[in-house]
């Protein structure tokens, strides 16, 4: 669905931010983009969303060159879930979700019954219908993040680009968000998310991409890519990937732990 080929980006030619980035996202994929701060993850998302203009390479959406697709068409194929922030004015959660329908509205017409239903369905899907009349700014971080995902779902795009969907969330909300992401992927959405938790690659993702200094260090299945050696190199600090026994039936999952040696 989304194909990124040899993309490069810079603000000044002598200081490249992204170099030869290639990745592919298919229906049902959950791609986790890992990397230290300031490595260009967000810049890559902005390039994919056409908020930054790429300097080289190509990005294709459903086989169409991204730069040749109008903003409206793009929004029908790809939605963005930003990190939860606040809006200046007292919007209700339901109004924020309904904003996601703007690309589907004819010029000058107001949201139809169908648009309202789509917004309600999106909130039902994320189990936040009861929050519809709450003020967005008064919600908790986890609730806000769910509202923004609902807005992207209401947009009816099949590709979701998520910027750190689990940032600033407690364990309960992290798990809730990862479950939502998994359910969406099972329904055929293609999801690209950034994260600072390598564990999440094991918990939810089908692909992991490790990015450092604007280039891709490794990409592939999380089990193959997210290893002690790779993470230690990625974050330039010792990280241990260990196996943890979850219950008496010997269910095992991998966990990543930063190691502090004085």
């Amino acid at each position, binding site marked *: 669905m989304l194909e990124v080929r040899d993309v490069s980006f810079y603000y000044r030619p002598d200081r490249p931010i992204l170099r030869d980035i290639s990745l592919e996202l298919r229906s049902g994929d959950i791609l986790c983009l890992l990397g230290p701060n300031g490595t260009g993850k967000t810049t890559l998302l902005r390039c994919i969303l056409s908020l930054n203009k790429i300097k080289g390479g190509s990005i294709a959406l459903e086989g169409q060159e991204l730069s040749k697709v109008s*903003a409206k068409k793009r929004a029908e194929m790809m939605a963005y879930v930003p990190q939860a922030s606040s809006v*200046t*004015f007292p*919007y209700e959660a339901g109004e924020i979700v309904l904003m996601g329908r*703007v690309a589907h509205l004819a*010029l000058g017409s107001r949201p139809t019954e169908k648009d309202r239903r789509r917004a309600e369905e999106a909130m039902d899907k994320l189990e936040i219908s009861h929050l519809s*009349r709450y003020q967005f700014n008064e919600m908790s971080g986890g609730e806000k993040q769910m509202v923004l995902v609902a807005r992207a779902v209401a947009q009816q795009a099949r590709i979701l680009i998520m910027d750190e969907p689990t940032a600033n969330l407690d364990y309960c909300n992290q798990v809730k968000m990862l479950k939502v992401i998994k359910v969406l992927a099972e329904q055929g959405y293609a999801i690209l998310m950034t994260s600072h938790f390598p564990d999440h690659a094991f918990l939810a993702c089908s692909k992991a991409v490790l990015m450092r200094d604007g280039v891709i260090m490794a990409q592939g299945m999380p089990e193959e890519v997210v290893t002690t050696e790779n993470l230690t190199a990625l974050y330039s600090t010792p990280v241990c990937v260990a196996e943890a026994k979850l219950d008496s039936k010997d269910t095992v999952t991998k966990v990543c732990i930063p190691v502090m040696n004085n």
Partner: protein
Amino acid sequence: MRIRSSQYFGAKIIILVCLTVVLFFGSFLVGRYPIPPKTVVGIILSKFIHIPQTWDATLETVVLQVRLPRIALGILVGGALSVSGASYQTLFKNPMVSPDILGVSAGAGFGAALAMIHNATWWEIQTSAFIFGLMAVLAAYLIAYVFGKQTITVLILAGIVVSSLFQSLLSIVKTLADTENALPSITFWLMGGLGKGANKDVLFLLPAMFLSLLLIFLYRNQINALAAGEDEATTMGVNVPLVKMIVVGSSTLMTVCAVSICGIIGWVGMVVPHIARMLTGANYSKLVAASFFIGGAFLLVIDNIIRGVEGVELPLGVLTALVGTPVFVLLLSRVKKGWS
């Protein structure tokens, strides 16, 4: 039971429209000449259907040539400033923004003053105010376009800088102005007033407002999405540069027309959108309709107070702030939540 601000929008708008209509007709009764309601209705109806004339011709002049343009201007100017204010506040994501943020008023004030020290006619003063008001906004927009990559912060900054430039120029003109005639005229112009408005001013304002309001109406959902920020609006499929240009263009056109006819009227453009937001919630497509009628009704009431007070004609721009300030304080005490 508390009525939620986003509920019953249709009913609220109908009430606002009725209120405005009642105020429109009621305002004909206010003024130095007492005219009975029956006569007012007769005079107005006689323009549409044939009614035997039972009233003095002077009364007809008062109603149709003096009160009608003033009342119409009150509603149109109040509505224009409020819609511009609501649009800018949503676009700039800033509750403290008013329609003159990009320099319209400062530019128009300088233009009017410049014309006044050259003993210009009323029409020339209006034209000069119009041209300089437009120039100021254009300058701010160009500065932001060329140097600021069109970012909103730079646009606001450019507007403030251009405003202060024209305010300095205005001060120079005031220093040079003849203290017997020109300086008092400039001072009164800067305080605003509907008193000089004539029917031809209404005819000049109407098409500009119709065009601006139509554009804003057509793009209201897109402007609403801009409240989430430019980047998010882009990813939701909004053509942000186009919508931004429509907001700035329409707001500027309405404001510059209003200001060049009525002088500088503060507060309405900033306070009314907040009052409207308490009534309809933050959703721009609802806010903008409520802003128009509340703004029109508000300015009309203020002007009625001015016309009703015997002996002295208080300046409109002064009275709006006088009433606007307590309203704004009340608002701050009521709406603590929701802003951040």
